[in-house]
């Protein structure tokens, strides 16, 4: 069985699942079980397909499509394999989690939710596998539409308005992507990506195609300043759908940027493309995390962190482009590999964090962190998983986020050592931005974990919360273990990522690991070993434990006091530190950057207002065609009909006369 057959199994099972959850929609619990059960099978098949495709070579399948101009071609190359693995892993976990979580939505059409989830996942898989521009766009639209329906699932004002914004930006993006593909199709004479790859465009056309594709896919990825939909749409969707949207769907945007910039336009890169990508990446990462810090809505906070991580991934991709443009394959592989590794890692830990947030919301029924607090005692497993996710996203060694950021730094460093002045100037600045991002991310996740899980319970619901249901804990546990393994097994994972990068770029592989150590290329002077760090960490932490234990017999047992010291006053819940006051110093020090957001938001508000005015105008003028054109005709038809009624008297003899008359008339016509 090849990767393609597993791929088809997964797609077909998803379609079956979609139909099944619609068919049994009248019984909520059956619908949940049908959707999730079938979904688990589909994702498992998808995971096999993705993992098989990772090692390459590309499996291509030509199928007969209904349209002669657009061949239905699927291509499972290592890059598509990585994307399919990520999609399948996350959807597998989302389905397991959904078994219990979807009960929250009982009575509100969970059958529909299952349907859209299945369509959403299947269309994402098809997007990454499609090797024809026309079909790519079809599936891309399907993906956007299905996720739109998940965003507006709650049907409240916020969800509908967020959904509208999402719809608007997604389609603005699609139009740009379409334009980019049409330009390429125009030059290639076909919609096949295979033809795109072989066509070489003039530098100007190539640049236009790249910029259109970059902005179009960038809107999907949620990079700043096209991110505005993301912090509103992702929180509105149900949590397991947010995990998929934030963990996977925005990666389709990155995939598109890689596809257009490094695959379809492969070898035609200009240096400034990479620098532009780097600049967008740096800005997105810093601003994303700064805005996240100011949030006290847990899901919005996580959504802003997606903006940040998209920025970090773009840093890697940008270095990859610079490497190709400057004819430095090692640098290109290193950069792209760092980006892809972070893409995988972000999918895992962001999925985990969204699921953790979902569990907390499931129990406390609020997204406001200020109304949580103290949940580590009542929800210990959720707290532990969330802590692992928080450590991973803050790039704390030896977890997975650190490994990919280390490679990103190494790629930036390698870029800074050689190349033109522009590159030597841009890459260290990007590295400093990454450092700033890292420090801010630590602060943000200390805040998130601290305010949600530590301290006193800040509301009645938080006080009486209980651990999430088993299937939700299981879903989180899978991803938490993945976070640890992707970090500790980096010496195994990094070469795989390197092979995907070199296969995508069509350049020789780069040595990224030797035994248990990681290195940025052969002959590198610096190495890293996450397994060794983990071993040392555990071994050396034994010493303080032993010291602590030696004197245990000399002292009284550990005791809990009444409450924390509150400068002599009686402690009160209102004294507890809030999310807002925690981030207050940063809001003060970085005030100008928050002002930027206001400006960007107001620009978008202007656009939305303009659009609304346009809709109003259209609505006002819509009847014009009716009153001026359709209605007169309809009226005159009515009048004519009434006039003609006289010939329909009801006397059958007259009707016979008509038949005879018609026969005579026809005979005359035939004769002449």
């Amino acid at each position, binding site marked *: 069985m090849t990767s393609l057959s597993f791929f088809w199994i997964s797609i077909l099972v998803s379609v079956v699942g979609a139909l099944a959850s619609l068919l049994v929609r009248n019984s909520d619990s059956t619908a949940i079980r049908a959707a999730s059960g079938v979904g688990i099978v589909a994702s498992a098949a998808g995971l096999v397909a993705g993992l098989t495709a990772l090692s390459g070579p590309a499996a291509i399948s030509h199928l007969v499509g209904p349209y002669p101009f657009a061949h239905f071609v699927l291509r499972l190359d290592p890059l598509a394999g990585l994307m399919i693995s990520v999609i399948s892993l996350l959807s597998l976990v989302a389905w397991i989690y959904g078994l219990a979580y979807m009960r929250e939505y009982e009575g509100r059409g969970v059958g529909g939710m299952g349907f859209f989830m299945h369509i959403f996942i299947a269309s994402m898989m098809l997007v990454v596998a499609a090797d024809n521009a026309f079909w790519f766009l079809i599936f891309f639209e399907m993906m956007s539409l299905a996720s739109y329906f998940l965003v507006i699932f709650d049907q409240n004002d916020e969800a509908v308005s967020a959904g509208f914004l999402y719809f608007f930006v997604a389609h603005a993006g699609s139009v740009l992507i379409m334009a980019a593909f049409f330009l390429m199709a125009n030059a290639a004479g076909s919609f096949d990506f295979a033809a795109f790859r072989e066509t070489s465009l003039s530098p100007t056309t190539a640049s236009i195609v790249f910029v259109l594709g970059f902005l179009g896919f960038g809107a999907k990825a949620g990079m700043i300043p096209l991110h505005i939909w993301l912090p509103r749409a992702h929180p509105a969707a149900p949590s397991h759908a947010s995990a998929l949207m934030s963990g996977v769907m925005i990666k389709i945007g990155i995939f598109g940027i890689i596809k257009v910039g490094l695959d379809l336009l492969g070898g035609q890169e200009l240096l400034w493309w990479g620098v532009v990508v780097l600049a967008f990446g740096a800005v997105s990462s810093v601003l994303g995390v700064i805005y996240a810090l100011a949030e006290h809505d847990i899901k919005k906070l996580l959504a802003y962190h997606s903006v940040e991580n998209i920025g970090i991934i773009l840093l890697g991709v940008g270095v990859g482009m610079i490497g190709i443009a400057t004819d430095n394959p090692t640098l290109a592989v290193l950069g792209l590999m760092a980006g892809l590794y972070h893409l995988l890692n972000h999918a895992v830990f962001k999925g985990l964090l969204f699921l953790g947030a979902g569990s907390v919301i499931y129990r406390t029924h609020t997204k406001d962190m200020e109304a949580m607090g103290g949940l580590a005692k009542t929800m210990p497993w959720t707290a532990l998983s969330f802590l692992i996710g928080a450590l991973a996203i803050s790039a704390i060694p030896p977890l997975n986020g650190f490994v990919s950021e280390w490679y990103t730094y190494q790629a930036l460093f390698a870029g800074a050592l050689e190349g033109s002045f522009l590159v030597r100037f841009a890459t260290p600045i990007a590295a400093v931005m990454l450092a700033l991002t890292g420090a801010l991310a630590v602060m943000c996740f200390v805040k998130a974990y601290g305010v949600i899980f*530590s301290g006193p319970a800040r509301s009645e619901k938080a006080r009486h919360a209980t651990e999430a249901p088993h299937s939700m804990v299981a879903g989180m546990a899978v991803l938490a273990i993945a976070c640890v393994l992707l970090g500790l097994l980096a010496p195994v994972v990094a070469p795989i990522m390197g092979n995907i990068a070199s296969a995508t770029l069509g350049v020789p592989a780069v040595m990224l690991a030797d035994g248990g150590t990681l290195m940025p290329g052969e002959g590198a002077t610096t190495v890293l070993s996450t397994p060794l760090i983990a071993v040392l960490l555990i071994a050396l932490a034994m010493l303080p434990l032993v010291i602590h234990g030696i004197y245990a017999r000399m002292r009284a047992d550990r005791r809990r006091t009444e409450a924390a010291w509150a400068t002599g006053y009686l402690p009160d819940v209102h*004294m507890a530190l809030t999310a807002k006051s925690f981030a207050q110093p940063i809001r003060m020090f970085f005030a100008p950057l928050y002002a930027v957001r206001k400006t960007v938001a107001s620009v978008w508000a202007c656009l939305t207002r303009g659009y609304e005015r346009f809709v109003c105008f259209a609505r006002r003028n819509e009847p014009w065609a009716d009153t001026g054109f359709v209605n007169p005709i309809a009226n005159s038809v009515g009048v004519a009909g009434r006039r003609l009624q006289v010939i329909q008297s009801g006397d059958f003899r007259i009707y016979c006369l008509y038949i005879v008359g018609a026969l005579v008339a026809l005979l005359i016509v035939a004769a002449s």
Partner: protein
Amino acid sequence: MPTLSHFLLAVVQALALFAVAPLISGLSRFERAKMHTRRGPSIFQDYRDIYKLLRRQDLAPSEAGRVFQFMPVIMLGALMVIATGLPMLTRFTPIPAVGDLITIVYLFALVRFFFSLSGLDSGSSFAGIGASRELTMGVLVEPIMLLALFVAALVAGSTNLGQIGIAISSGTVHSAAATLLAAGAFAFALYIELGKLPYDMAEAEQELQEGPLTEYSGPSLALVKWGLALKQTLVVGWFIGVFLPFGSATEMSFFGLIGGLIAFVVKLFVIFGVIAVIENSVARARFRLAPQHSWLGVGAASLAFVFYLVGL
């Protein structure tokens, strides 16, 4: 790959630093007392404090969680991992797989993460504000640190701390001005990281920035105090290893290591002397002024970068 002797050296180095850390913090206290012309405690006072605290009962607020309980152990463990990676007695990093500048910066972030989270986890709002401030200082310091080290790494052609030290000591760096400025910026960033006046007072527990410790007591407090002393020693050792590697052993030999040890102790002593002078001649700066001061560091590091670019 590190050989067994490198590995042993790393572990011995970490354990030795762990053992002498309270002595070094005791020395700081002793020096300050002398500058204030008071007799002050003995330089072994910190050992006595730790010993005393280890035998006291461990109290925790009712709302404190697991992070609060385990932070002292995690903090000390992570700091000792850092100690295995820094080039101190030798010019090369004992374990190269830990001695990358990015790894070290992020291992310090691991310490910071748990250190401040323990403040929030204690349930005390006072400790929470301390955590917030500690992290804010991290945000201000880390970019300076990274840019300065990045410039030094570019000059040396490697991000391995030992390689940077080797390049600087052998004089193969091709832009001296950039290296000097980077050293200055790095020293400034590390000084803030030390938690000394004018940015902090590590000894004063009611001081906000060390506020995460408010609720610690008994053996936990002993371990955290030990950890803070170790952190200060490591931060200074980091500077010595990268920018002042002169005198350290260039290869693994007994006399080389002895020479390296003597050189390291002398440098540590001198630097702590300088720190004591600075610390005792300034007043506490308002917290809100910290970002304005940190611009100085950013400026110096950026200037170093510009110098590197033009090759000065």
